[in-house]
């Protein structure tokens, strides 16, 4: 029996209903962070605010009822992007060009605020938009794509619609995305020229704080791996999936590598190369098989599609995890052949 909610019933007529208070604060937080991430005086401030921006965006996905996105944003946006940025910014000298004249500050603010207020006014009080049914879902113009997706979920092999869309109806997107990760990694490898000597970062001395960090990493990494596995397995019936699990595993690899517990992931080892390519390769093999025996590229046979999706997701998780960790902490000695 749900206890009586103490909240005030939001009146429909009031322009800003009380229900929106957390959303308004989140909006304020996000705008301050976006503005700070761009125009903070020091670059280190800008980067930290960008990481905080990722966290608030994850909260907004939660408010907008998008669990898969909240998981992915928390893992990728808040976690890996920040480490990636700081890791790269270390090798760059200080602020290259001081651009922050006050004119740009207020120019940016005026530009954004005026334009978005015009958009809001147009949205609320212009009935051409309303009649087009852009905003209210009751009109018969329910998006056709969506009704198609809902109708087909039952025989897609998984119950969770987002995973069904990701790995069954729009499997091409996921395949090409794995290829995008591969291209990014190969691009990264080309940019390590011999002339570039990033001085080695061997943490020779072992201060006590490193001992603390390695102990903490030993606790954190298994928990990350278990949560990643849990998200992967749950992806078929509830929010979760290959990308969220892969980024969690990549976070485990990053923390182990940074505290020196994991040896550098040598690109020269064949196993590493194979596992990086495995995700996309297996997907292509399945695509070819369905083209030859099945009835079209990536149209899974209805009998096996549950099994196929799970194996594709598992192998994709492995290759995403390794590719992301190489992208984030790929040192020069790692990525050299």
């Amino acid at each position: 029996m749900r206890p009586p909610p103490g909240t005030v019933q939001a009146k429909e007529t009031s322009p800003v209903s009380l229900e929106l208070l957390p959303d308004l604060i989140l909006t304020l937080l996000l705008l301050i962070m976006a503005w700070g991430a761009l125009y903070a005086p020091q670059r280190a401030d800008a980067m930290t605010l960008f990481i905080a921006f990722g966290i608030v965006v994850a909260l907004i996905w939660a408010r907008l009822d998008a669990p898969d996105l909240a998981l992915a944003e928390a893992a990728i946006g808040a976690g890996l992007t920040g480490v990636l940025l700081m890791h790269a910014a270390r090798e760059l000298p200080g602020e290259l060009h001081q651009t922050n004249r006050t004119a740009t500050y207020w120019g940016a603010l005026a530009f954004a605020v005026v334009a978005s207020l015009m958009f809001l006014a147009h949205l609320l009080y212009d009935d051409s938009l309303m009649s087009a049914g852009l905003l209210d879902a009751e009109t018969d113009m329910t998006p056709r794509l969506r009704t198609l997706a809902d109708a087909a979920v039952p025989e897609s092999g998984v119950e969770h619609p987002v995973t069904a869309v990701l790995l069954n109806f729009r499997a091409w997107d996921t395949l090409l995305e794995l290829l995008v990760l591969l291209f990014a990694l190969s691009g990264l490898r080309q940019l390590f020229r011999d002339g570039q000597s990033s001085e080695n970062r061997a943490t020779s001395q072992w201060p006590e704080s490193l001992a603390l960090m390695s102990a903490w990493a030993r606790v954190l990494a298994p928990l990350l791996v278990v949560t990643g596995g849990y998200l992967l397995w749950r992806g078929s019936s509830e929010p979760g999936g290959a990308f969220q699990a892969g980024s969690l595993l990549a976070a485990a690899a990053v923390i182990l590598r940074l505290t020196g517990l994991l040896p550098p992931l040598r690109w020269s080892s064949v196993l590493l190369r194979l596992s990086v390519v495995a995700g996309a390769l297996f997907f292509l093999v399945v695509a070819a098989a369905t083209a030859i025996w099945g009835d079209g590229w990536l149209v899974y046979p209805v009998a096996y599609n549950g099994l196929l999706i799970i194996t594709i997701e598992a192998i994709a998780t492995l290759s995403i995890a390794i590719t992301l960790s190489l992208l984030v902490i790929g040192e020069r000695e790692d990525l050299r052949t």
Partner: protein
Amino acid sequence: MISTVLFFAGWAFMLAGCMFFVTAALGLLRFPDLFSRLHAVTKIDTLGLGLMALGLALLDPSWRSCLMLMLVWVLVMASGAVNCQLLARFNLEQEEAQSDEAATRHRPGKGDKPRVS
């Protein structure tokens, strides 16, 4: 009957947790140096979130939610403690590095200061 008791107890704990959040926010703004601010923030990880999680567990007392709340709380508490240690040591190292540079810049010939461990 039991659910109303749980309801009010849950809300009481949640309000207490929320009070800790507010005090830590004030502490973070008002305290002069880093170490006292560290003190303020780790209070949220342990008590603020702890009371909030306890209140939430009372409000919907199913096994799964209670275990997950407890796991999240223990994890945040542990990471709060470790972060506090790391940030404090990191700040000490930074200050030492700056004071070493300052020392060498003023008296280059004298060699560096005796290291205070």
